[in-house]
């Protein structure tokens, strides 16, 4: 007779077979048998967080920076409800997470037992799938299925709820051999005909643009390389969503910068005026499209996405291609090379006027700002941070708000998986725990959380985690004492009624850093900024960097609510010089 294992042992057997190295978690009554088993498995290291939301975001940061699924372990009731924000965040941004939650024993389910909640009910709409395991014989199968669901197709979070009695019960375990190449194959529903059609459209286009998103990153590092090749052999301009940053080098001349609500003037105008839009792994999010009825009215649209339900959801497209980005681009490049040897040459002539027009938009220099020698401008702070860290293969996470947009605009990424930000859900408090997860995956790399003082206070307790595991994360706070993005909307749209957007009693972040046992640094003026940033980089400990910035700076350019791409608000310099016209201006 083969050996019998307890449910808790099976959980670890599964994780070993799935090559899990780290679990982010927090113990509690209903997962104690699993925690008891932890000591017997050397290859798996548990990272103790300070709040289950932090475990979820740390696992997200881990997953996004290294491409492997993040694993979370929480207890029943409050443990499970606390992780819901992170699961929803991962669901919106397509991040593979496997969350294992404890549950009260099966005979107590439904009795309102201590720390009982309907975990599978609560997490049903924010996971790809979830399971309540009621029989120990199903446990191994379920956990392996959970990893498969999380990592295949469009990735996302899953949850396995395991009642405490199941963790004690015994069953057999047969070793699991992970199938290779699950991703892609089963999701590719395109044919050579689609690719030929696309190439025909591309060769006819006079004003084409690539619009790329997080799908390129999720498709793996190879997809980013292929994208670079594709863009270079076509000579087309390319813009990226917030989540796609890094899949194409931010300082390349063909890159127009980020598009969308706070995207560049050239990217948004090019999207509006193009005659061929090739969407690769993006989802026509409302922060990107603005007013749908007036979104890129003249263009033929091609949509390459692994998720068939993304096609025609928000914007009707002319050519849908359902498949893994990497596989689609690789066939596309192969076909171009085979048939259209002088594609690049003929295209250059075709689209030279288009590049001229883009050059005009570019000359507006929409990311500019009026710098100051007295106060630190937040954009300047990010530019300096970029200049001082760009040669270090730096990993950046962010919280949510103005600082996030400034980081996206002014920090130039040239590799995928270096940029971790909460885009879909917009979760304040994401960046600090995410940085913890990134640093776990890349212990020797520089990891910086570009933060706002309001966001970072939401998950500040995770500094304690960083200190416990010697994770030298840098929390770079652009401190303007306001919830800046809220304040900006109130200034522009609610007659400067700054209702509850000012934080009157902020902690002293330097002392707070010291209280946590890490290093606090404060920068007050532009001339000391470089030296202080360098000091932050050189310290081999976690740092909270309190960068006191201009309190009233707004994030421009900006597409005001419900406006199309060609009606942008530009920064103060351009407003003075009267470069924006008509409708846009009346909104200021």
């Amino acid at each position, binding site marked *: 007779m083969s050996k019998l294992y307890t449910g808790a042992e099976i959980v670890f057997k599964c994780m070993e077979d799935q090559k899990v190295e780290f679990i982010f978690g927090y113990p509690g009554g209903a997962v104690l048998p699993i925690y008891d088993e932890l000591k017997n498995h050397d290859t798996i290291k548990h990272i103790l967080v300070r709040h289950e939301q932090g475990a979820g975001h740390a696992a997200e940061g881990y997953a996004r920076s290294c491409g492997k699924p993040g694993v979370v372990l929480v207890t029943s009731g409050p443990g499970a409800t606390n992780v819901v924000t992170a699961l929803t965040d991962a669901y919106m941004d397509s991040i593979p997470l496997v969350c294992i939650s404890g549950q009260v024993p099966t005979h107590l389910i439904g009795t309102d037992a201590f720390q009982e909640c309907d975990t599978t*009910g609560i997490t*049903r709409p924010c996971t790809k799938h979830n399971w309540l395991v009621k029989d120990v014989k199903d446990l191994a199968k379920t956990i392996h299925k959970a990893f498969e669901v999380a990592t295949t197709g469009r990735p996302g979070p899953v949850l396995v709820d395991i009642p405490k009695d199941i963790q004690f019960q015994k069953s057999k375990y047969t070793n699991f051999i992970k199938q290779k190449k699950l991703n892609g194959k089963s999701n590719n529903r395109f044919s050579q005909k689609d690719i030929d059609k696309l190439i025909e459209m591309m060769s006819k286009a006079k004003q084409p643009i690539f619009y790329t998103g997080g799908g390129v990153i999720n498709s793996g590092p190879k997809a980013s390389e292929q994208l670079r090749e594709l863009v270079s052999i076509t000579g087309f301009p390319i813009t990226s969503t917030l989540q796609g940053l890094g899949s194409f080098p931010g300082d390349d001349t063909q890159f127009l910068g980020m598009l969308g609500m706070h995207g560049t003037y050239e990217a948004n105008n090019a999207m509006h005026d193009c005659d061929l839009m090739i969407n690769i792994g993006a989802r026509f999010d409302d922060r990107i499209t603005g007013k749908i009825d007036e979104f890129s009215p003249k263009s033929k649209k091609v949509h390459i996405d692994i998720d*068939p339900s993304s096609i025609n959801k928000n914007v009707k497209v002319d050519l849908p291609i359902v498949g893994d980005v990497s596989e689609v681009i690789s066939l596309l490049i192969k076909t171009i090379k085979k048939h259209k040897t002088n594609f690049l040459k003929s295209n250059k002539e075709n689209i030279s006027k288009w590049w001229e027009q883009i050059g005009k938009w570019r000359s507006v220099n929409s990311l500019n700002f009026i710098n100051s020698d007295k106060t630190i401008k937040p954009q300047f702070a990010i530019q300096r941070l970029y200049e001082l860290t760009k040669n270090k293969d730096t990993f950046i996470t962010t919280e949510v708000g103005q600082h996030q947009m400034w980081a996206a605009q002014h920090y130039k990424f040239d590799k995928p998986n270096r940029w971790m930000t909460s885009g879909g859900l917009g979760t304040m408090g994401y960046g600090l725990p995410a940085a913890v997860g990134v640093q776990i995956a890349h212990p020797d790399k520089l990891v910086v959380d570009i933060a706002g003082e309001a966001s970072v206070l939401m998950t500040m307790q995770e500094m304690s985690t960083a200190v416990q595991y010697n994770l030298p994360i840098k929390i770079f706070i652009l401190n303007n004492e306001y919830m800046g993005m809220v304040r900006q*909307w109130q200034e522009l*749209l609610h007659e400067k009624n700054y209702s509850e957007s000012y934080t009157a009693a902020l902690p002293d972040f330097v002392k707070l850093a010291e209280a946590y046992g890490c290093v606090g640094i404060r920068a007050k003026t532009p001339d000391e900024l470089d030296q202080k940033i360098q000091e932050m980089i050189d310290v081999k400990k976690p740092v909270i960097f309190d960068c006191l910035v201009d309190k009233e700076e707004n994030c421009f350019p900006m597409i005001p609510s419900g406006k199309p791409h060609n009606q942008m608000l530009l920064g103060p310099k351009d407003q003075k010089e009267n470069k924006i016209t008509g409708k846009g201006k009346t909104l200021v």
Partner: protein
Amino acid sequence: MAKSKSAYSDPGKKGKLDTHIIVVWVDNEAGVLARVVGLFSGRGYNIESLAVAEVDPKRGISRITIVTTGTPQVIEQIKLQLGKLVPVHKVADFMRGDKKIIFKEMALLKLVGNTSKRNKALKVCKKFNPVVLDKTQKSVVLQITALRREIDNVMGDLKKFGLVSVSRTGAVAMTRGSEIFK
């Protein structure tokens, strides 16, 4: 136009609404109906009627028939979103009024009244295969099968003949001829 204060765009033009019958084959497991129904409520889709039962006990497959209304874009989304659920095997979509499809709904009707009223009631139901399931001195329970709208009409007509209680199933559907939906 008044200036918008919202961070979101205004709703665009509304498309034309069609009624569709969506048939979903699912694993008959705990919570599967909640997943399907939750997808509809969570994404703001409409459910007019719902019928569900296991149809293949050996493989544990249930067949869910949902009548819904939406723009062509919404109907397309419903199908694609359903297709993504892990326990869903296949999704079929029929337009109401499609000649190749049979739709039927069953209703139980309880009528209280004298013999003459009850006979008149039976006459009203004649077209819809009435079956008398229960009969007493002053009451009758009828079973009819018909289309949703036909049952609506019958209910209206029966009011004056002592209709006191109605129980209806949701619509179920099947293709005509030898073909089956793969």
